[in-house]
Structure formats: structure tokens, C-alpha cells
């Protein structure tokens, strides 16, 4: 029962703040609503027994990515509030796509097509299990990730820096 209540509360907040982010006029407020959505997603991960993912969600998304979002907002939009008007055709296309996606998701969940194939850990996945998996079975993707981060770093510096000496 607790889980059910948690799920409903988190869902209402997550969807509500996502809608607020979409309709908001002030980009900074929109970004803050997105933060709230991210927090709720972290909550979902917790209730599903994935505390590591919840922590990553908060550290990386609410922490780092959102700061970058805010910087960009402050960088490009210092004076005016609001955004240039989006053409109605774009809105319609976006809404249509979103509706299709919703139908597909609801369909996949209600028909339970293929769900249940994923092996689950009783009691959730602990940080220790994540660490062990990363360092043994999944060692190669783990190392490749550091190469990816290095390339990202070079790219960021090459493209964002004013002058390269």
C-alpha cells in the first residue's frame, strides 16, 4: 500500500511539474520545474529498488545537467522573457508524436508484451552489486566510458573555447 501511495504522489508531482515546465513563460522557472520532475524520477528509482540510479539521477541530472541548462538560459536569454513563438504546425506535429508514443507505451504496458524477461534482484540492486558488475563482467564498457569522457572533454574545449593556444 505504501508503495502505491508513493507511486501516485510521485507521479502526480512528476507529471504536474513536467506540464508546468512546458507551459511556463519564464525559462528559469521552467528549468526549476524540470528539477522537480527529475527528483520525482529519482524517487521512482528508489521505490523500484535501484538506489544507485536514484543517486545518479540526482547527482548528474539535477546537479550537473540542470546547472548547464541554467547557464545556457542565462547565456542566450538575458533580457527578454518568454520565447519566440513556435509555429502551430510544429506544435501539432509534436503533439501528434507524443500522442503516438503514449498509445504505444500504454499498449505495451497493458498487453504486458514481453515484460518480465528482465532478471530481478530480490530486495533491489545494491551499490555493491553495481560496483562488482562494473568491475568484472562490464569492465570493458566501464573503461570505454572513460575514453568517451576524454573525447567529450576534448570536444567541449575545442568547440567552446574562444581561442586555442
Amino acid at each position, binding site marked *: 500500500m505504501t508503495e502505491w501511495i508513493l507511486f501516485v504522489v510521485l507521479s502526480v508531482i512528476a507529471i504536474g511539474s513536467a506540464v508546468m515546465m512546458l507551459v511556463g513563460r519564464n525559462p528559469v522557472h521552467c528549468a526549476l520545474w524540470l528539477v522537480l520532475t527529475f527528483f520525482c524520477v529519482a524517487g521512482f528509482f528508489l521505490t523500484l529498488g535501484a538506489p544507485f540510479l536514484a543517486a545518479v539521477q540526482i547527482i548528474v541530472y539535477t546537479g550537473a545537467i540542470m546547472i548547464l541548462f541554467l547557464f545556457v538560459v*542565462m547565456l542566450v536569454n538575458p533580457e527578454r522573457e518568454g520565447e519566440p513563438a513556435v509555429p502551430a504546425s510544429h506544435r501539432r506535429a509534436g503533439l501528434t508524436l507524443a500522442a503516438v508514443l503514449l498509445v504505444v507505451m500504454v499498449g505495451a504496458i497493458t498487453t504486458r508484451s514481453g515484460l518480465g524477461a528482465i532478471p530481478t534482484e530480490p530486495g533491489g540492486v545494491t551499490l555493491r552489486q553495481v*560496483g562488482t558488475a562494473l568491475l568484472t563482467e562490464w569492465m570493458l564498457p566501464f573503461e570505454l566510458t572513460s575514453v568517451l*569522457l576524454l573525447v567529450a572533454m576534448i570536444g567541449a*574545449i575545442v568547440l567552446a573555447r574562444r581561442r586555442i593556444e
Partner: protein
Amino acid sequence: MPTLTTPIPANPAADWLPVAVFLVTAVLFAAVLLWIPRLIAPRHPTPDKARPYECGERVSGEFWQQIHIGYYLFALVFIIFDVEVVFLWPYVRVLGGRLIPQGLGLFVFFDLLLFVGILVVALVYAWRKGVLRWE
């Protein structure tokens, strides 16, 4: 209550009850503190009083100012190292010792050394390019 095909562990959220209690208390605490002054403080707003507080000086310039582009690069570099920390964190938990009896200890150690080593290259690069210096 809907059931999912994937069994959800008995009650994984229970461990996090203190965190939830803390969060709720924090929000309530802040809300109450904001609410009390409204209740008891006298309110006689004048234009001067309604101005944003800027160390007692008169407000000058626009509130919303464009930030320096330099912050952006810092934020990018920050994200990259943030993600690195996220990957190192589970390692700290396994360092507890379960892996070493399996004869993997040394291998895992070099594994991590390589991970950090590659990112040291990134740090050296950023440093030599002067990214860490504020202009």
C-alpha cells in the same frame, strides 16, 4: 493496486523512510517559517520597501544579466568529472574486500587505474589548455 509482471522487491523503499521523513520535514519547516511572518508581521508596503535588497544601495542595472561565457566551459568540464565520480563511487563500495579473494583484486585495481589514468589525461589536457584558469 496494479501488479506488474516483474516482481517488485518486498519493500525496498522502507530503508529510505528516514530520508523521506527528512525531506518532508525540511519542506514543512521552510513552509512554516515563511508562513509565520505573514501571520504576525505588520505589512505596510511602500515603493522603497518593495525594491529588491542590494546591500542598502539603490538598485542599478537590469536584474537579469548575461553571464560570462567562461562559466559555460566550467560547467561542461564539471559535468564530465561529475560523471566520472559517479562511476568511481560503486568501486569504493566493492573495495570492501569481496573481490580480492576471487583473485581479481589486482586486475580490478589496474582496471580502475586505467579508468582514472585516461581521465588524468583529460585533466592534464584541460589544464595545459588553460581551461582551469579564469580569464
